[in-house]
């Protein structure tokens, strides 16, 4: 399965960094789309189906929390896997996002952290992606 991913962040640098991490992670990627704020992100989602949304919180025009609320209110995106990638440190605000079904990855993040979170919330397992792990039998040389 190849993932179509939308990355929404007002920082072009952070979008590029997230996309780079995605490409280095070994995940099977389809289209990788980008948007600079929540409003642009909603517009992209009207035109394209994605399997995963990576979302910043503090953005101009429409922030990530508002975008997430609108997504959850629409039947076609109500269960879209969402990972909030943000510097947000307020537990109050993070708890509200988690109640909306988002996973949280705090910046700064290690690439493995983002990859593991994607695997967890999309339900893809290492075994499915990397294939069955070979098991040495009785005739093994070891």
């Amino acid at each position, binding site marked *: 399965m190849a993932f179509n991913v939308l990355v929404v962040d*007002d*920082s*072009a*640098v*952070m979008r*590029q*960094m997230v996309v*780079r991490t995605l490409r280095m992670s070994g995940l099977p990627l389809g289209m990788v789309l980008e948007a600079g704020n929540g409003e642009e992100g909603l517009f992209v989602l009207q035109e394209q189906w994605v399997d995963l949304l990576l979302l910043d919180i*503090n953005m*101009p025009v429409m922030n990530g929390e508002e975008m997430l609320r609108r997504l959850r209110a629409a039947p076609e995106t109500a269960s879209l896997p969402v990972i909030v990638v*943000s*510097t*947000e*440190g*307020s*537990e*109050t*605000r993070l708890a509200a996002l988690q109640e909306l079904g988002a996973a949280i990855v*705090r*910046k*700064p*993040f*290690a690439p493995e952290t983002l990859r593991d979170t994607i695997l967890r919330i999309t339900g893809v397992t290492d075994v499915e992606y990397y294939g069955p792990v070979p098991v040495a039998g009785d005739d093994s040389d070891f």
Partner: protein
Amino acid sequence: MSSTTVQSLSRATTATFEELALLFPEQELSPEQAAAPLDVAVSVEFRGPQRGRLVLRASSTILSSIAANMLGEDASRERPLQRDALGEIANVICGNVLPAIAGVEAVFHLSAPYVHEGVDVVSRGADEPTASIMFGLENGRAEAVLYLFSDMDDAEPVAQGAVSAA
């Protein structure tokens, strides 16, 4: 509070450079690092339970390494991307230091990072930094400075320190 704030700033700065830029701040500066000018600066304003600014000053000699590690070798040669990468580091440092000094329930609003060319334009006249740290990075150095503003203009004097391990 001052030493606690310095420690919080140091931890946030170290962790951000290590994880985001794969660079390891050095507490002891070499003569080459100490002589390198701090000729680029970025700032992030914040408001919430406290209002202030995080300023990150750096030697331009380290910008290509930061950009390369964050964005790849191609991006490392583009000057605007180098400065934007430094801005993102400042943004992440700011986002991580604020909960440490104001509590995890506090909600802050951060401005987009602003890039300054030159070093004298990032403080507001009589503003005194609340905390600052200086550290070596590759063949240059950097300084993170935290300002907490108050309406009564009663900010505590600067507490200086060196980067410690995250």
